């Protein structure tokens, strides 16, 4: 769910608000996105959205494959494969994609999530044909070279060391998901494990490209300064010649069985301060309950006046940093709260306080004032996250790929604005229960040099 990232501001905190004194204020409505969506004969979807304010264009290709599509023993492969897409195709030399784009003043990159793999470039507008040509070339004719594969695997292992293993709290997400899931591949991190990365082979690369990197599984989104008819003609020209796979894209992913009772665990890591996690299994992106859950994230931790910020950081000084929010994705995922425990405070107190916040949502609900604040914050996020072509492409593609309904890119605004305090309380009662809860204490490891 793209619209739900909070504006990145350091969380300090704040105490009780004079709710009754503040007038009710309706959210400012963001302008609607203008777009066209077309499906080419080979199954590739093309989304076009013109924006002539700056002479640049953004081209993103979303493949509907992420780490949840990985088979056991091959965790991290979707992302490793993403790296291989920069290793050349019939008309493009290894590592040349990036330099061709930068040589015209453009930027390019890619990322992998649990659900999708996204390749993008932003360029001066006149280079739109080049971007489409580059993406089509690697979709159809990726080069698969064993030496390049082995070298890139080392790069990805360094990436894992850098992002996950070598910095404080880098493994926190990995620890949470490993304890919370038993079956569904959300259990493992997108970056994968070292052992699985090492086990991956060149044959896996070929299979993965053949299975998932096909037009039927791809959505190209083009946003920026172009003529719509010409852009569609160019997209058709370059992507249209990629052959369709003609067979079903694999999509059998095991479902996570409901928890029978709550779980808890205590683990040790070489981090300076303890971390406490309280997590609940929740629903998927687009489910009616997902909207009140997003509202709940805001009420708990968006801004210094949000409940967890105010209570746990500011008033009680229990946590150096804390939040509670839903990671709502294509398949059912988690809503979790984290507290990095201040020196002098105990993990037990932090756990009690975090659970207390969830219980309060169930027993007392939220106020109309808090709901209105969350809705105003939503409107802000809608507006501020639609400034760039890249932002707009992300919203359109997310709606088209994850919801399989591009109208949700704008349509969700009304759903959020119509959410009621009763919805928020009902959803809290549905999910924030002891039998559905995972509690973790991650304690500093005694090192002793």
């Amino acid at each position, binding site marked *: 769910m793209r619209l739900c990232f909070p504006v990145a*501001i350091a969380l300090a905190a704040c105490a*009780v*608000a*004079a709710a009754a004194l503040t007038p009710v204020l309706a959210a400012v409505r963001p302008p609607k996105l203008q777009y066209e969506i077309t499906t080419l004969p080979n199954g590739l979807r093309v989304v076009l959205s013109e924006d002539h304010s*700056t*002479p640049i264009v953004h081209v993103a290709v979303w493949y509907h494959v992420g780490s949840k599509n990985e088979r056991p023993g091959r965790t991290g492969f979707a992302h490793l494969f993403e790296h291989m897409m920069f290793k050349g195709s*019939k*008309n493009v030399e290894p*590592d*040349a994609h*990036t*330099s061709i784009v*930068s*040589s015209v*003043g*453009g*930027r*390019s990159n*890619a990322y*992998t999530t*649990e659900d999708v793999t996204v390749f993008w470039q932003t360029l*001066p*507008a*006149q*280079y739109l*044909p080049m971007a489409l*040509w*580059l993406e089509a070339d690697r979709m159809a*004719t990726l080069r698969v070279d064993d030496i390049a594969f082995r070298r890139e695997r080392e*790069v990805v292992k*360094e990436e894992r*060391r*850098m992002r996950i293993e*070598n*910095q404080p*709290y*880098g493994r926190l997400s990995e620890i949470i998901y490993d304890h919370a899931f038993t079956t569904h591949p959300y259990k493992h991190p997108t970056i994968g494990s070292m052992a699985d990365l090492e086990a991956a082979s060149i044959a896996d690369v070929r*299979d993965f490209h053949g*299975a998932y990197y096909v037009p039927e599984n791809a959505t190209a989104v083009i946003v920026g300064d172009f003529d719509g008819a010409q852009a569609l003609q160019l997209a058709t*020209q*370059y992507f*249209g*010649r990629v052959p369709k796979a003609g067979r079903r894209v694999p999509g059998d992913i095991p479902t996570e069985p409901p928890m029978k009772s709550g779980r808890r665990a205590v683990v040790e890591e070489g*981090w*300076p*301060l303890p971390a406490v996690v309280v997590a609940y299994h929740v629903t998927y992106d687009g489910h009616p309950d997902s909207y009140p859950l997003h509202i709940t994230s805001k009420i708990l931790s968006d801004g210094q006046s949000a409940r967890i910020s105010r209570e746990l950081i500011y008033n009680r000084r229990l946590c*150096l940093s*804390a939040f509670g929010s839903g990671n709502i994705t294509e398949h059912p995922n988690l809503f979790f709260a*984290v507290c*990095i425990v201040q020196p002098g405070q105990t993990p037990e107190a932090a756990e009690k306080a975090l659970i207390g916040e969830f219980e309060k949502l169930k027993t007392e609900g939220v106020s109309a004032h808090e709901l209105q604040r969350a809705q*105003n914050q*939503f*409107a*802000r996020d809608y*507006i*501020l996250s639609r*400034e*760039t072509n890249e932002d707009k492409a992300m919203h359109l593609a997310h709606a088209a790929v994850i919801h399989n309904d591009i109208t949700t890119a704008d349509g969700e605004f009304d759903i959020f604005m119509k959410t009621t305090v009763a919805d928020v309380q009902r959803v809290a009662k549905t999910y924030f229960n002891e039998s559905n809860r995972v509690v973790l204490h991650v304690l500093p490891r005694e*090192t002793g*040099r």
Partner: protein
Amino acid sequence: MSNAQRPTPNAQPVRCQSLWKLGVGVLGVVLCVSAASAQLERTSDGRFVFWPAESPPRPLQARSVKFPPYEVRMLPNGLQVITVLHHEQPAVSMRLLVRAGSVQDPPGKVGVASLAASLLDQGTVTRSAQAIAENIDFIGGALATGSGSDLTFVNVVVMEDSFDVGMNLLADVARNPAFAAEEIERQKQQAISSLQVSGNDPDWVASVLFERLVYGFHPYGLPNSGTPETLSAITRGDLQQFHRRYFVPNNMILAIVGDVTSEQAFAAAERAFGEWPPAEVPPVTVVEPPPLTRRIVIVDKPDAVQTEIRIGQLAIPRKHDDYMAFDLAVKILGGEGANRLHRVLRSERGLTYGAQADTEARKQAGHVVAETDTRTDTTGEALRLMVEEFSRLQRDRVSQNELSDAQAYLAGSFPLTIETPGDIAAQVLNVVFYDLPVEEIGTFRERVQAVRPDDIQRVARQYVRPDRLSIVLVGNAAAFVPQLQRLGFTDVEVIPIEELDLMSATLKRDTRRADSFGPFGPSGPFGRVRSGRLTHGQTQGNPRVNVPKGRKNASGLSNGRLVIERRIKSVTFKTRIDEKLVDQPL
């Protein structure tokens, strides 16, 4: 449309000649093969496809690129006001810059500017901290404060119907902070706990120690968030004095950006700040950065799986005639469009996820820094290769092609740097803040293209000193120091991470236990170690580091705020324009 469609005229191969002009000449060999017709190609899963051999298609007609309109005015009290109007989204952002940061910290009180900035929104004389938070959150706005070495900022963003509310709030937190005792205590605790976390992060430790080596006791070399000791010593009076001295309208720049009219913006600025009287700003005197000296400092973190590497030296300040040429030279070493370090370390050898070099040019001075991280057992090799790239840049003339690639990116990406009103405002703020001629924005591309290989050679010879580099490595010292010695890096200092003290002349905390045995016995595993030996104990100690902007967008604790990110990006590129102005929130 047929899948095997033949290329249309638009897809005809361009000639090698025009490819060179595009700056992709180095790739041209294969791209320029004849491409008259489609060939049968086998796909990865064994099917066959007709796919032409061809070069990238010709560009469409180029659009004209103009820097969007903006206005700069000065109020009678000296406040500089910049407006950039933009009406696509119904939002307005305001950025207030104060020309004072950690450089203005009183002697021995490192952290005053940073603590003062963190307290601006924690209560004014008429509003409590909670009232400010409730106010900005409820209207769907956002407010952030912070500081760097040369500046302090307050950023506010609101929806257009709350413009006046936002402006009043901005003026109140900038002009009337209460610095209440209780809030000071709370922010000190936050800052000290954050230091405990960042002091364990090799990335941050490497960055702050590197700056300490380059700048010595010049304020740019000191941790601007303070240390537990200096923070504890800061009084309410220190904060009030800092605010009284430097928060005056003639020492500030205000940018108003977004969905307002010019009249509305200037009228609001006048209303909120107009009657604030100007005052003389006391000058500061600081010590000079030390002369360039070769120094290799290793911070030992035995549980590290990677080594963080920083290599660089003092260079030139932002306002300098050689800035453009020097910046391009550094981009050839490790920036977008070129990046020898990335090629040598990542593409050719798979030693790292990312390697880059940056010009970090500030008001008073500047430096060049190259950085990477690599696994412990390739630390020596990575260090050798990076030092060699500094030598090569200084020794060998760059080719026209390599320079052209760097220029093509820098000049060509200009339209990408004016996409949002915030981007535009950041560029104007940059020239105003650094006292550069405002025409520089409009002539940017011409100035980039005017640089010649001779210019690069001249600045490289003049400023780059490969024999006098400051080098920091943070990692598992016992495992990689022998590698360094085999490669001739013998003159190294090793400091256990918990004994690092940036405020000390020796960089080491005074432990009074210097003779204790390390885990490797009394002599340690190292031959010629100049100072510092691995010692037991000191689990209480935390190195004194500031909280610089993390270069990594990953999970972890950033500025005390937990970031959990599960998505993984593949190629690293920084999109920074100049110094830190653009990196600020909002």
